[in-house]
């Protein structure tokens, strides 16, 4: 009996890794340029479809497809930022919200047009079903791998932020755009690079999502909500907090599902609302909105 609960918590923790990957890109974009990207979930789904296409055309393993999908999504992110999103940024928060909402609609319908509404899945062979037994618990290799990737991605982003010239530029632009510009940093280019990095992470999240569950063009909104909740629970601007937020969300969902299978999503949202009520800035906030 106890073992079942421990199992639920462990499975939820691993699921939290995937949510943290959904959230990392959102967190990065908001942190650097105060842009709330409503299309983020649809970009995750787009990456999953891109992965699907690469896998079926080239006949390679989905994890190998990352080599193509990550740079493709990153390049798309840079162009999207320079050509569209930079024009919406200013003192007003509303234009970027409206434009990314519109982008979300366009992406969903575009995917529907190209791939139809049929649910799809990326085939990863034995990786999907392989499991290891640890202390009496049976853990899927894919969830373990996802969690490890989430740790690595967040560690990597953290390293970029605090130990590279690019990260210094991200932080400077985030602190004060005008003064950063005076230092010779072109914020439009820096924002483009931030979006490229965020969508590179999104590519990883999308492919892992596509291996884990079936997907169709309409599921972006749900992934966006999970990402948002993880970011808010963890506290804005703190990537390790985002991981913690993902884990809390994942654990709440699996525990909810354990009590009653219909409660999975509800339990996640309730955990989010409770934390928002107790700690409006999240658990580990680093920047003030």
């Amino acid at each position, binding site marked *: 009996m106890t073992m079942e609960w421990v199992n639920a918590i462990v499975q939820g923790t691993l699921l939290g890794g995937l949510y943290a990957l959904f959230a990392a890109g959102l967190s990065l974009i908001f942190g650097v340029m105060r842009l709330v990207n409503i299309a983020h979930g649809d970009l995750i789904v787009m990456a999953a479809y891109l992965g699907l296409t690469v896998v079926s055309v080239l006949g390679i393993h989905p994890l190998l497809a990352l080599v193509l999908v990550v740079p493709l999504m990153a390049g798309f992110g840079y162009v999207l930022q320079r050509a569209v999103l930079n024009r919406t940024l200013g003192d007003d928060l509303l234009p970027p919200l409206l434009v990314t909402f519109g982008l979300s609609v366009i992406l969903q319908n575009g995917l529907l047009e190209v791939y139809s509404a049929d649910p799809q899945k990326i085939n990863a062979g034995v990786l999907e079903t392989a499991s290891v037994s640890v202390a009496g618990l049976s853990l899927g290799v894919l969830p373990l791998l996802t969690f490890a990737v989430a740790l690595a991605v967040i560690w990597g982003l953290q390293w970029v932020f605090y130990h590279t010239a690019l990260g210094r530029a991200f932080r400077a632009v985030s602190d004060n755009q005008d003064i950063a510009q005076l230092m*010779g940093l*072109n914020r439009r280019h820096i924002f483009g690079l931030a979006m490229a990095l965020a969508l590179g992470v999104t590519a990883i999240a999308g492919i892992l999502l596509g291996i884990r569950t079936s997907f169709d063009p309409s599921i972006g909104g749900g992934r966006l909500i999970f990402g948002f909740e993880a970011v808010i629970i963890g506290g804005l601007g703190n990537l390790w907090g985002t991981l913690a937020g993902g884990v809390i969300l994942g654990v709440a969902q699996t525990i909810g599902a354990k009590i009653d299978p219909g409660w999975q999503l509800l339990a996640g949202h309730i955990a989010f609302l409770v934390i928002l009520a107790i700690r409006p800035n999240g658990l580990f906030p680093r920047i003030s909105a």
Partner: protein
Amino acid sequence: MPEPLLQIAGLNAHYRDFQALYGLDMTVAAGEVLAIIGANGAGKTTFMRSISGLIANGSGQVKYQGRDISGLRADEVAALGIALVPEGRQLFRSLSVEENLIIGGQTGRKGPWNLAAVFALFPILKERRAVPATSLSGGQQQMVAIGRALMANPDLILFDEISLGLAPIIIRDIYAALPGIIGEGMSAMIVEQDISKALSVSDRLYCLQEGRISLEGASGAVSRADISRAYFGME
């Protein structure tokens, strides 16, 4: 007469919805130090923002080294060698002291200023290089702001209200350091409320009043009476 380093001709600029500058004309020669004085709201900060490219200007209004820079973005202006020490210091709060200085050198311009030179000028910054820049005292933060501008090895450095909000003893130290800073052939514009301080370090002065130049002259030659007339706009 050689080509001036900076030539301002008929500069109009806006602060929010108001016109802040009306047809300003000004020249800065290479190696010259100008003082810009004027009451609050005279347009001094808008003027600094115009020159440094944070405000877009009409074509031909700002020429630098013979080139029209009126339409350039601030990062492009910075790359040409104009650096601003902004009012209120405005350090990057999530960057350490050292990172604030390094980012000042982002343009990659060559010259005498680098981390070691800035640390030699302000030794306290070397001691405190790893702490967040905004945890320093006001005077030390001003040193970082000055060092950050110097790291760009500018030909023209703009100081906007460097003594604002600082203790008199700190102001004295910073002004004592100024000749060493601008002695290297650099031109400077010093915006200042403290008129005697501004006069003591400058070659020429301009007084702004409600967006227009109300007085111009050699710093040693203008009288106190002229200045107060130009400053307040009354007899």
